[in-house]
């Protein structure tokens, strides 16, 4: 007997008991659906996290952050001036594994244009701030050294700032116009590109409503923050906000302490070398006071992969168990169906079927159940992930990977084969005369 014939008989058998076959498959369907959905969800979350990380500057970006001076150095703490522009200049000159560096200040201030107001963080930065933070100036230009040297009142702004302050024409490109930042006029010299994830870009290009909708107070969205960026030259910022520190009526003098210092290593492999160099430089300028440390994306990157892996494994395990339960269901029904069809088996044996033929027939049947269950499960998973797209805020949409589909489907087929082995063996052991005696 050829394989095609077994297949035809198997399909006919399944078709002749549609409802029962469906119930038999249900375990496999649900198993495959939950397996693939888990994979899709995990992959979606991992993808969103990776995207977020890249938007935030990738693994090469290292923040030099302030930390509490340790107990034994408390008496020395005042000898260090903390992170200063001089630190940044030193790093720029001396650290060979650092390609870009920017010191920065930041302040939450009101932005005004005509009657429109928006409160946002503005950053006083060096030009390197833009490439380090993966910003792209789409219109106009970036801040330059001349802007810094002359302390010009210029700014580069993100698209969301325009959206908010030019509500009558959200697509305006107000280059050269004036924006009032904390009461002082600033000339807009550059506009950042619109940052969005892939799905939104595709939706927007097709002229559809963006999938990603940011509601106020809803989950933190990296794109919103990035699109609300306002940068001005570091020197301008210093003159405006840090040159004097009036407490009561007494000026305490300028504040040289930076709010932040960010570097970018030459490449991902030399992140640690860059950290070591910067560390030894800053230990000198900080006179040995251990008041700084490093915040890298390396750990974040690792934790993203680890979380994704663990979720995949846990979800996969649970879904796998439900698939196995589905397989047991198949075994059970196949055994019952053999008792029911024992006479058919007898007839087939009488006209010349060998026990191997019977074995193949039952095994093919259970495999077909696994295959059909697998296909239906994939369809169900597709439906489920579409459903999830409606309920999530869009930042971590499920991603269906070919490998996940292949794995889920392969597992279903394997379950189909395995669950048929015992019934097939049982059926093939029945002696022809025993089988014929029934009924």
């Amino acid at each position, binding site marked *: *007997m*050829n394989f095609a014939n077994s297949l035809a008989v198997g399909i006919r058998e399944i078709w002749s008991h549609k409802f029962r076959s469906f119930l038999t498959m249900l375990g496999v369907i649900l198993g495959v659906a939950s397996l693939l959905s888990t994979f899709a969800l995990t992959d979606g979350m991992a993808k969103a996290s990776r995207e977020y990380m890249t938007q935030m500057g990738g693994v090469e970006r290292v923040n030099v952050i302030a930390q509490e001076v340790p107990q034994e150095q408390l008496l020395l703490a005042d000898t260090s001036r903390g992170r200063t522009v001089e630190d940044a200049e030193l790093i720029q000159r001396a650290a060979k594994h650092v390609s870009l560096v920017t010191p920065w200040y930041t302040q939450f201030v009101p932005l005004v244009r005509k009657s429109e107001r928006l409160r946002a963080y503005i950053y006083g930065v060096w030009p390197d701030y833009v490439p380090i933070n993966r910003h792209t100036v789409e219109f106009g230009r970036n801040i330059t050294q001349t802007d810094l040297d002359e302390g010009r009142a210029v700014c580069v702004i993100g698209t969301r700032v325009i959206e908010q302050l030019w509500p009558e024409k959200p697509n305006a490109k107000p280059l050269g116009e004036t924006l009032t930042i904390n009461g002082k006029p600033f000339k807009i010299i550059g506009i950042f590109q619109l940052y969005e994830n892939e799905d939104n870009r595709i939706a927007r290009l097709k002229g559809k409503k963006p999938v990603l909708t940011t509601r106020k107070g809803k989950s933190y969205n990296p794109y919103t923050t990035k699109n609300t960026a306002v940068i001005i030259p570091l020197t301008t910022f210093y003159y405006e906000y840090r040159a004097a520190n009036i407490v009561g009526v007494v000026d305490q003098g300028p504040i040289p302490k930076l709010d932040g210092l960010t570097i970018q290593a030459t490449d991902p492999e030399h992140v640690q070398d860059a950290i070591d160099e910067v560390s030894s430089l800053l230990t000198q300028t900080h006179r040995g006071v251990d008041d700084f440390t490093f915040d890298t994306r390396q750990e974040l990157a690792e934790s993203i992969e680890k979380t994704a892996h663990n979720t995949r494994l846990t979800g996969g395990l649970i879904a796998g168990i439900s698939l196995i339960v589905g397989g047991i269901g198949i075994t059970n029904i196949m055994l019952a169906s053999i008792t029911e069809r024992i006479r058919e088996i007898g007839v087939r044996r009488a*006209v*010349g079927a*060998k026990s191997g*033929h019977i074995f193949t027939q039952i095994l093919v049947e259970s495999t077909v159940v696994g295959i059909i269950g697998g296909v239906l499960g994939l369809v169900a998973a597709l439906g489920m992930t579409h459903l999830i797209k409606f309920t999530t805020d869009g930042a971590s949409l499920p991603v269906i990977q070919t490998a996940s589909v292949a794995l889920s489907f392969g597992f279903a087929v394997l379950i189909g084969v395995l669950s048929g082995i015992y019934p097939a063996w049982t059926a093939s052991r029945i002696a*022809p*005369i025993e089988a*014929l005696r029934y009924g």
Partner: protein
Amino acid sequence: MALIELREVTKRYRVGEQEIRALDGIDLTIEQGEYAAIIGPSGSGKSTLMHLLGCLDTPTTGKVVIDGVDVSSATDGRLAEMRNEKIGFVFQSFNLLGKFNVLENVELPMIYTGVSKKERRDRAIAAVERVGLMDRAKNTPLQLSGGQMQRVAIARALVNDPKIVFADEPTGNLDSTTGASILQLFRELSEQGRTIVLVTHDSEIADNAPRRIEIRDGKIVNRAAGFQSGIHTPPPPTA
């Protein structure tokens, strides 16, 4: 050489503590082209004998040779091949597959022979035509009468052109008129030279066959009158 040869064949079953001798020292020879009836009351061992002759079972002791092949200790696979190529069965309860139509039922033995799809269909059509059921070829067994079902079963038994056809109470589930037409069909097959072994408990039905093999308590009590085992030659068929 005889088509079927049995030498000192016994078949014993264990039922709990008790041992049942279903067949007890059977010697039997059936020649090519014979039409024989195995007759005996229920429990006499006639079905067991047919199972041995039909390669559905193997004897406990003794020797069974079918068409020159010793099947006494053949493997399951070899027995299946014998049934497939050399033997056709007709059962009392027809034993057709309910989910398959007439032609598909008739094609069944050829599937296991490995005949191509096209040839299967052609030979099945020829066999169904032979039993006069071509107009019901696409019907399923449930849509047929008892006599028609038995004709389909006969077509199935003949489709692989077997040496021997075994019929186990073929008229048992049929009314007398239909039964008679089925027996007529067997006579025609016999006249065409086919070896036929009929198993029945009904003496009247056994009379259709020229040779009578009577079995009682696992022993052959009376072979066709006047003939001795092994030297029997078939008498001319009686119409």
